[in-house]
């Protein structure tokens, strides 16, 4: 047998030689490629430029987002927009949130798509901001249509780079009827929370449906940690090396997770349960609490119209030490690509979405609350959520972790504890990863 190494050396030389050729070809081949493109788009339906006589060329703007479930509602809104602005066509592209991250990155860079796009707060927002892909929206008139306190997640260095459109409370949902039936009041402290869970368990119910395999830890950690570490900068400090996961605030949080798990307050094998299965338990009224967030209210209702749902947050400390009542997140942040060839049209589209009546149409159609001011909510669920606007809530701590690997380590420590690792040890293991991340 011939040595593979010798052969791969030959291959490497060939590859290098080819690379040179190709690079040369790329430089000179540009014209060819472009003309091919012209032919190509000449046949394409969407981007055809009709050689209109004197009429302004129609413009197609691309709208990238990740909420497939909103598509029907958005399609109607886009139709209205196109009627109002003849000559602007909006082409939507939807990717589920997990794939959104990977493709949006490649696609935004050159500005060919995503004239209007959406961003998550936190790590993704920071990365896109650093790359300079957000057009500054600061001076735009439509910014004033939003609740000022709810659009801070889209600000950086005093500029409004993106406008959070959705308002979500990342705290558990509970089944009001089941609570009433078993004479349970919304608990005000940790002992009360445990007692309520015990009562539900004794009644043969699953106290808390918890999607440990996917969204569960990321959602439930927020209310669990909010009062254990009332400092809103806690994760910023963690990333700066000024706080540690092995400190009391996080070990205590992990211990409380362990307490819920060991007492059997989550459904069996919670760590293997995905969101859909956890939701199903709650929808079928087999579980009294669903550890997800307000975004899930409408979906639950659609599957079981008899449900009466409200939100509650576990208070992990004695009632008099509780600083926060809940968690909010402003997400689905609308932005204009700074590389866009049609920034004015893109802004017109955001302006349209920012109108009170359009935002109401979006909210009531999708069952999501919005950050736009004075919106009339018609559904019972949205009204339940809007009660929370007056409560003392804090921005989702998980999204204040701007380093994704740190976030992953934090979430993994929860999973490790649910899998049987001691809280102290799980915290140490996670801190080791954090140290490595912030050490660079």
């Amino acid at each position, binding site marked *: *047998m011939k040595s593979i190494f010798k052969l791969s050396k030959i291959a490497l030389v060939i590859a290098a030689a080819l*690379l040179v050729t190709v690079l040369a070809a790329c430089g000179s081949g540009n014209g060819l490629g472009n003309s091919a493109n012209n032919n190509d788009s000449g046949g394409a339906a969407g981007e055809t430029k009709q050689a209109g006589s004197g009429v302004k060329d129609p413009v197609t703007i691309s709208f990238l987002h990740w909420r497939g479930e909103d598509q029907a509602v958005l399609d109607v809104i886009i139709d209205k927009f196109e009627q109002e602005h003849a000559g602007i066509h909006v082409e939507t592209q939807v990717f589920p949130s997990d794939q959104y991250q990977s493709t949006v*990155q490649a696609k935004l860079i050159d500005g060919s798509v995503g004239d209007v796009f959406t961003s998550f707060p936190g790590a993704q927002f920071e990365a896109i901001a650093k790359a*300079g892909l957000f057009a500054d929206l600061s001076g735009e008139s439509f910014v004033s249509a939003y609740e000022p306190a709810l659009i801070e997640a889209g600000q950086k260095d005093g500029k409004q780079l993106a406008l959070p459109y959705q308002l979500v409370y990342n705290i558990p949902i509970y089944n009001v009827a089941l609570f009433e039936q078993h004479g349970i009041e919304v608990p005000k402290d940790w002992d009360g929370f445990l007692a309520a869970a015990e009562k539900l368990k004794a009644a043969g119910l699953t106290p808390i449906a918890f999607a440990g*395999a996917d969204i569960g830890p990321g959602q439930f950690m927020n209310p669990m940690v909010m009062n254990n570490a009332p400092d809103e900068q806690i994760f910023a400090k963690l990333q700066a090396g000024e706080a540690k996961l092995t400190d009391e605030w996080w070990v205590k949080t992990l211990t409380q997770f362990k307490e819920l798990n060991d007492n059997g307050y989550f*459904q069996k094998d919670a760590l293997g*349960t995905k969101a859909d299965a956890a939701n199903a338990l709650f929808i079928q009224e087999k579980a009294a609490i669903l550890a997800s967030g307000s975004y899930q209210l409408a979906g639950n209702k659609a599957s079981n119209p008899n449900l009466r749902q409200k939100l509650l947050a576990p208070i992990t400390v004695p009632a008099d030490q509780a600083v926060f009542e809940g968690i909010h997140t402003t997400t689905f942040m609308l932005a204009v690509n700074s590389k866009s060839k049609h920034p004015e049209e893109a802004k017109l589209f955001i302006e349209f979405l920012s109108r009170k009546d359009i935002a109401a149409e979006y909210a009531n159609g999708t069952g999501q609350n919005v950050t736009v001011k004075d919106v009339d909510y018609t559904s019972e669920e949205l009204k339940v959520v809007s009660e929370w606007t007056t409560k003392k809530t804090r921005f989702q701590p998980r999204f204040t972790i701007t380093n994704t690997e740190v976030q992953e380590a934090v979430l993994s420590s929860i999973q490790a504890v649910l899998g049987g*690792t001691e809280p102290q040890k799980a915290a140490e293991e996670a801190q080791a990863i954090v140290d*490595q991340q912030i050490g660079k």
Partner: protein
Amino acid sequence: MKKWMKLMPFWAPGLLLYALFFIYPTLTGFYYSFTDWDGLSPSYRYIGFDNYAAVSQDIVFHKSLVNNLKFMAAILLSQTVISLLLALRLTRQSKAIVALRALYFLPTVLSSVSVGFIWTFIYDPTLGSLNALLERVGLSTWAQNWLGDSAIAIFSVAAVQAWAHIGQMVILFVAGLQSIPKELLESARLDGAGRFSLFFRITWPLLAPAAAIVVSYTTIQSFKAFDLVFTMTGGGPAYSTEILSTYIYGSAFLSYTFGKAATASVFFLALISIITFLQFRLLRTDRISY
């Protein structure tokens, strides 16, 4: 050299396409392993071997490496053995056998994302059918938290990978088996060779090229398995199903450290090369490895 020139029309078009749309982007990608590019910004810095130092010490990278080797071993063993056993029984051309081969192949035509969905349900501890089934037949002690127990999650995913690909491997083995001249087997049988000696003396050596393809394809697939892990566990719980490809994906697109992702890919490539090389050595298939 004349031979080389004469053959040019045959390899040149393929090589050109390959160079343009594969080698060039790949080398560009690897180039980023020496930079701190985040995958988004217009600018980046050249940082030499910093990424290599960082990745080789990275705790999560180590975990994903170990998981990946476990994953590979599990798949390689189960997939090759089962598909060979099945293929040995499926070389004839009766209607039933043709139908069986088609049936086994069926999962292969599904996208791995769909396969991931299907099995997520089956494994689901509350809604799933696997545990329910085990209970019904009185094997409730076998019921597991298939994807939620960090000790077995990676093997649960490996089983799905094998489920989806065994049919494909059966087809390859059957093709190999059918290409073995019947006269050879016939004459050996007349010489009084038993079932097992027939297999080890005649069938197996002649099956080597097919086996080599199966083994190396399986290995490479086990490293490239991304969709399945991504849809089923997303690397969790607590990193227990994080494999190299999900690690690379995570650092490129979730953590915005494209340089680190490219570095991990270089390690990835080196590892697969070594394993493939060893495999060819082991299987002694000189005829195919050049």
